[in-house]
């Protein structure tokens, strides 16, 4: 009866993202890691303010489009078509990129992707590279892999730069330094810039314009010196072999045009069939992510052009568990995600727990889905439970990913996985079985409810219960519980003849 759900992966199933490389797993369960952030008032304040502002902007620019629902449906449909014919579109993309003078590399996992990139960088004779924000290379842990190979990688997005100089981890897809305020940023700049390049002016203030100027001067030197740039991609257009990056600061354009060699690492689900499809996403993405009608810089490039821009272009297509996600019919729509981060900004759990608690480069609601999908649920078993299933994420997702239903689906896989790996039932399993057994027979159920009233002794002196033993102490640590009633509803219904005995038979 219960075996039709969440069967363990059959032999020969596509591999998940391997352990030991990249950033998809935390070292602590979510509830434990979240407790840190909850105890940090500055972080709570920053997160609350930042997410509230972005939410407001997003809502305003989405509300002004009368056809948002249609756009959203179109975005979901295009992505579903891509996922259904991924093999076709990827081969088409490879052919077009190659014929435009680029080189396509296929990376099965993070380790392969990192090795390919390191080899390309070393072949170009470089020991420094500049990077434009890329989730895929954070996922693979590329910077660490490059460092191990003697190559320094410099992040050039303002927020990523802050994170990198602060020796920190990003906490938001779109606003990686959302957990830092400007006083902290000033300190980081003063302390760290000089050691790795052009130093900040010692008289630097925490005025946002001054901070941006310090970053600009520091980065400009990096762009001019770099031989190799590494980017991610928001999309790739199969029909022409064109790559695209959507950004706000212009550092992407510098990376994509100045260095001699350009290496782009992209998750293989980012391909779209045609330029026409792009129209949909260029409306959905900026409105959902930064709350702008249009993002400041949209760069597209196709292969190489003699005497203009990079003279060498490499595209690394990353799997790292994506094929395994695709193989799960109930989970595959997570690959529609365009990384807009709207779901993070509305998530009440993310707003309080912060990005680091998720232990992965993908935080928030989509991270709670995607990280365990990519690694396999056994390695991220607490993430699918890091949600109250309030549904706010589904409402704002521009490609209509039903995140709550997917979380529930992954919870089933976690439960199945635990059951498959231990013959002794957990206390939760025992509790659930007992509850089912009781609830399947109204007679047993009525008796159990009556027995539950024995709990009345707990609250004898007041009408509230203030402390219960574990695991229910997790409830009573912050909330009271009402004392059980004198009579259950069903007993009242029967004894009072449907209430008619009480009110004299209406």
């Amino acid at each position, binding site marked *: *009866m219960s075996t039709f759900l969440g069967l363990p992966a059959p032999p020969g199933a596509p591999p998940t993202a391997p352990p030991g490389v990249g950033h998809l797993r935390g070292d602590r369960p*979510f509830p434990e890691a979240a407790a840190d952030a909850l105890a940090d008032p500055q972080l709570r304040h920053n997160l609350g303010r930042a997410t509230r502002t972005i939410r407001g902007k997003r809502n305003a620019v989405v509300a002004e489009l009368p056809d948002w629902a249609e756009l959203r449906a179109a975005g979901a449909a295009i992505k579903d078509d891509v996922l259904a014919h991924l093999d076709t579109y990827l081969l088409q993309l490879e052919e077009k990129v190659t014929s435009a003078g680029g080189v396509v590399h296929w990376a099965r996992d993070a380790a392969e992707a990192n090795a390919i990139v390191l080899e390309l960088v070393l072949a170009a004779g470089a020991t420094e590279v500049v990077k434009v924000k890329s989730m895929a290379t954070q996922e693979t842990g590329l910077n660490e892999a490059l460092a191990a190979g003697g190559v320094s990688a410099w992040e050039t997005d303002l927020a990523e730069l802050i994170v990198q100089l602060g020796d920190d981890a990003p906490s938001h897809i779109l606003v990686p330094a959302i957990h830092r305020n400007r006083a902290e940023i000033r300190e980081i700049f003063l302390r760290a810039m000089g050691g790795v390049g052009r130093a900040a002016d010692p008289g630097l203030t925490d005025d946002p314009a001054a901070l941006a100027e310090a970053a600009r001067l520091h980065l400009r030197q990096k762009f001019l010196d770099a031989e190799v740039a590494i980017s991610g991609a928001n999309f790739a257009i199969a029909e022409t072999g064109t790559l695209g990056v959507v950004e706000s600061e212009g550092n992407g354009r510098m990376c994509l045009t100045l260095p001699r060699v350009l290496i782009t690492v992209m998750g293989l689900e980012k391909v779209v069939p045609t330029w026409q499809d792009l129209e949909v996403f260029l409306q959905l993405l900026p409105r959902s992510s930064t709350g702008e009608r249009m993002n400041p810089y949209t760069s597209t490039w196709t292969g190489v052009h003699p005497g203009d821009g990079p003279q060498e272009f490499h595209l690394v297509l990353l799997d790292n568990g994506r094929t395994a996600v695709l193989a799960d019919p109930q989970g595959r729509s997570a690959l529609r995600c365009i990384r807009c981060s709207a779901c993070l900004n509305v998530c009440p759990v993310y707003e309080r727990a912060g990005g680091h608690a998720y232990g992965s480069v993908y935080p928030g609601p989509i991270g709670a889905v995607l990280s365990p999908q990519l690694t396999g649920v056994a390695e991220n078993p607490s993430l699918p439970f890091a949600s*109250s299933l309030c549904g706010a994420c589904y409402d704002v997702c521009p490609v209509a990913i039903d995140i709550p239903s997917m979380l529930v689906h992954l919870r089933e896989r976690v439960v199945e996985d635990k059951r498959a790996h231990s013959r002794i039932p957990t206390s939760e399993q025992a509790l659930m079985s007992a509850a*089912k057994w009781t609830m399947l027979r109204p007679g047993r159920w009525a008796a159990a409810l009556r027995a539950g009233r024995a709990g009345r002794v707990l609250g004898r002196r007041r009408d509230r219960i203030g402390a219960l033993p574990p695991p229910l102490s997790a409830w009573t640590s912050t909330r009271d519980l009402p004392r059980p009633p004198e009579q259950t509803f069903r007993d009242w219904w029967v004894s009072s003849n449907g209430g008619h005995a009480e009110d004299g038979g209406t």
Partner: protein
Amino acid sequence: MRVALFVTCLVDGVVPDVAKATVRLLRRLGVDVEVPLAQTCCGQMHINTGYAGQALPLVQQHADAFRGFDAVVTPSGSCAGSVRHQHPALAARSGQAGLQRQVEDLASRTYELSEFLVDVLGVTDVGAYYPHKVTFHPTCHSLRVLRVGDRPLRLLRAVQGLELVELPDAEVCCGFGGTFAVKNPDVSAAMLSDKLRHVLSTDAEICSAGDSSCLLHIGGGLSRTRAGVRTVHLAEILASEPVPA
């Protein structure tokens, strides 16, 4: 029209007054509501905790218990949401075509209380009298799974003597989330404390909602902090009448 009350396991065992109020209210509006005693629980806790396999027989039992009724009404947005959305999905995955038909049919006849009053009975003024200052938490599943919209607010605005005050950030989750409150107690408590802050900022005497589960969570927090604000289910407010002279 044969109407059944889907009591829900929580209301049955913990807050029976909510079901009694629902019965009183419906009778006052001329609906002779029945209570099939074969009902127990819709299985939502099992489903949301990852035990869909265990929930399937409960889904079957729920569908059997409410066979033959024209409408099923429940004072819980979350349980109505489970019956309308999770049951059909689960039945479809089970591959049992008969169950799927039965469950889809029941889903189309299942209503949360405010939906039943406004859409089926066509009333917003239910003749209630409740001279208190009230704020309303709309609850996530009523809002985003059932899309009840402003139906509860329309019902409350029509209640004589009631002063309705708007709850800031009303649409944000209170942090209950079923087993979430136990599995992630710290985050749940942080969400609750923000909700309590907003409730207190309204200066209301009563915080109401259409879900007893969220109300137990919010009420538990209010009681712990001795906030002096009570939680009262929507059904109990709508069932209140002026004391006869």
